[in-house]
């Protein structure tokens, strides 16, 4: 096993740094560029336009162009802002985004960390972004930002619950919180004695998958749940006062979180890096696993962004009603049914 060899030769901090650098450069940047381009093109075609065409062939370097543009801009801090908190807020949001990547496995041996409470960790760190958003809204000293941040907080807290409860069904069925274990359970599982395609949980946990996607949409503050940034009401909510590099960090955070939540959904419900018909312990998956995961992730991201570009937004009270009166009872029912069936079969 490659990780074991590494462990024998290098100190822990060396391993960690190598993983971090390789992870950032080799995985996240190309993945980000690809997803970004795909989503931009998809969105443009839905809206009957071409999308980015100028930067690079077919607009493929658009992400670099935008990063370059934002880097040149002035980093403005409003006069009445709480400077330290204002400047720290984007980092808090980004940290939450990148901590999420840690637990997603890309192959049988490919993962940043292998913890037994993988999905628990992921859902826990995803809530850190709320603090960043609240910091941004409060420190901006702007009424629009404050309204946006408070909306975001109420919304993110409300939708943590269905998010967690939707995942519980998967956890019950897989019998583990470990992400790798969940993938393996799907790869080696059987549906009523038929094991030809494994047991991707989207089939048995379709309700969970649907609730998870809706809750993710709300966690990402995207339409139809984008009241916190509602550009036609609150200008851009908690982002209003940000410019240049710090705005870019929020912006990247938004897209990256969308991608990473898609990867999470792909791992939990679509079998992650596994392809039906092959031996899941095969070393082959260490090579093609990330690509398979990427494909599934783009599929989920397509769904998320499809909703995003089709629906208008809810009002705050309608959104809370949806969370507390529809999604949470449904996910509780889902857990009960899953638990009963787990005991019966």
């Amino acid at each position, binding site marked *: 096993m490659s990780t074991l060899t590494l462990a024998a030769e290098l100190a822990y901090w060396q391993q960690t740094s190598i993983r971090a650098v390789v992870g950032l450069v080799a995985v996240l940047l190309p993945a980000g560029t690809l997803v970004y381009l795909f989503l931009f093109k998809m969105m443009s075609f*839905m*809206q*009957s*336009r071409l999308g980015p065409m100028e930067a690079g062939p077919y607009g493929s370097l658009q992400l670099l162009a935008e990063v370059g543009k934002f880097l040149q801009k002035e980093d403005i801090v409003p006069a009445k802002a709480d400077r330290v908190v204002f400047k720290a807020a984007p980092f808090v949001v980004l940290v939450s985004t990148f901590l999420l990547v840690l637990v997603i496995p890309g192959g049988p041996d490919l993962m940043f960390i292998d913890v037994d409470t993988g999905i628990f960790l992921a859902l826990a760190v995803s809530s850190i972004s709320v603090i960043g958003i609240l910091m941004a809204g409060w420190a901006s000293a702007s*009424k*629009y930002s404050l*309204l946006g941040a408070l909306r975001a907080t109420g919304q993110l807290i409300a939708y943590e619950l269905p998010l967690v409860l939707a995942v519980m069904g998967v956890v019950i069925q897989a019998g583990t919180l470990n992400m790798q274990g969940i993938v393996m359970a799907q790869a080696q599982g059987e549906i009523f004695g038929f094991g030809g395609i494994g047991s991707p949980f989207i089939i048995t946990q379709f309700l969970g998958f649907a609730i998870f996607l809706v809750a993710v949409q709300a966690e990402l503050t995207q*339409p*139809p749940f*984008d*009241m916190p940034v*509602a*550009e*036609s*009401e*609150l*200008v851009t909510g908690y982002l209003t006062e940000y410019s240049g590099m710090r705005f870019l960090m929020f912006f990247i955070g938004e897209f990256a979180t969308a991608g990473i939540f898609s990867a999470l959904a792909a791992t939990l419900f679509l079998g992650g890096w596994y392809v039906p018909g092959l031996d899941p312990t095969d070393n082959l998956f260490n090579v093609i696993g990330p690509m398979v995961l990427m494909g599934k992730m783009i599929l989920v991201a397509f769904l998320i962004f499809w909703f995003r*570009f*089709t*629906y*208008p*937004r*809810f*009002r*705050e*009270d*309608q959104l809370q009603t949806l969370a507390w009166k529809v999604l949470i009872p449904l996910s509780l029912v889902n857990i009960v049914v899953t638990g009963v069936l787990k005991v019966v079969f």
Partner: protein
Amino acid sequence: MTATTDAQQLAYIAGQAADARVNVELETEGMTLNIGPQHPATHGTLRIIVRLDGERVIAAEPVMGYMHRGYEKLVEVRTYPQVTTLVNRIDWLGSFANEVPFILAAERLMEVEAPPRAQWIRTALFELSRIANVVLFLGDMGVQLGAITPVFFAFRDREFVLNQIEAVTGGRFHPNFDRIGGLKDDLPKGWIVETLGVLDRIRTFCDEMEDLVAGNEIFQARTRGIGVIPADVGLSYGMSGANIRASGVDWDLRRDSEMGLVHGELDWKVWTHPDGDSFARYWVRLQEVREACTIVEQCLEGIPSGPVMAKVPRIIKVPAGEAYVETENPLGIMGYYIVSKGELVPYRVKIRSASFNNVSITPWLLKGVYVPDVISILASLYFILGDIDR
């Protein structure tokens, strides 16, 4: 209808009293939020000062005049043919429609009448500019509620209408085509067939919007029962156009007054909706675009032959007198009151534009709603800033 308003007022007072009690207990403070003059939702420079309690609006006050361009004064130093250039820019999305009432008023003073062919083409262009105007609203309402896709469809399909207007008049936005006594030119060759094709596109667009926006559950949840205007309140604020027809008032000047346009000879329907809420206003406009397509189609089929210009003197001097003509423009009723002293230029012109009255109801309408509904209500009232401030 008075009962409704009284009940609303009582509920509002009760709500205020309850808020006051809560404020004493919790010592919460209201917040004044300044929406505009530069704000993404006002598509122009309308400013609304709202007093908020949490996200609920306690009081709202529109501040107008940021785009005042003094047209009524400028008109006084322009000859009658020059005025159309100016008034094009009042409601800039349906500019040809702005020229029509002015020209009709001047024609009435001069006692000339445009030849039949000119009247039919005028009606067709009048309705085309209505389509160009309202199509954008149908998409823009989505943007205001957070769905960004419909507006791209709207811009795409509006372009075909603008192309047709440009083919006749030479200007996409500012045609300056209407003349006292007729029109500047006749239609170009092949225009009628092309326009029929464009109308089909617009009908497809309306079907798309009915699916994508009006049929959307979230859209309905956001607009049904929101911003309800009872008919008598709407009328007392001087509202007109689709806004008042959405409150159940069956009043359309195209049908109810015969003013130099040929709507009376055509077969079409005035749409009303009993609800008076934001959804009703959207729905009525959607139907009106379809109805406008029918009108244009009938105009194109029925255009008589003949000249497009009546005999008028080369240098136009309007005889002394006063005339007021109003027409049913895309945004509502638009009228020009011309006072002439028999000179080259009008002595005084008063412009009655629809959006000014339509927006005046906001202090009454926005009390007690939530901030997101402020935007959806404003969007559904559909104002053009140039039409408010002139």
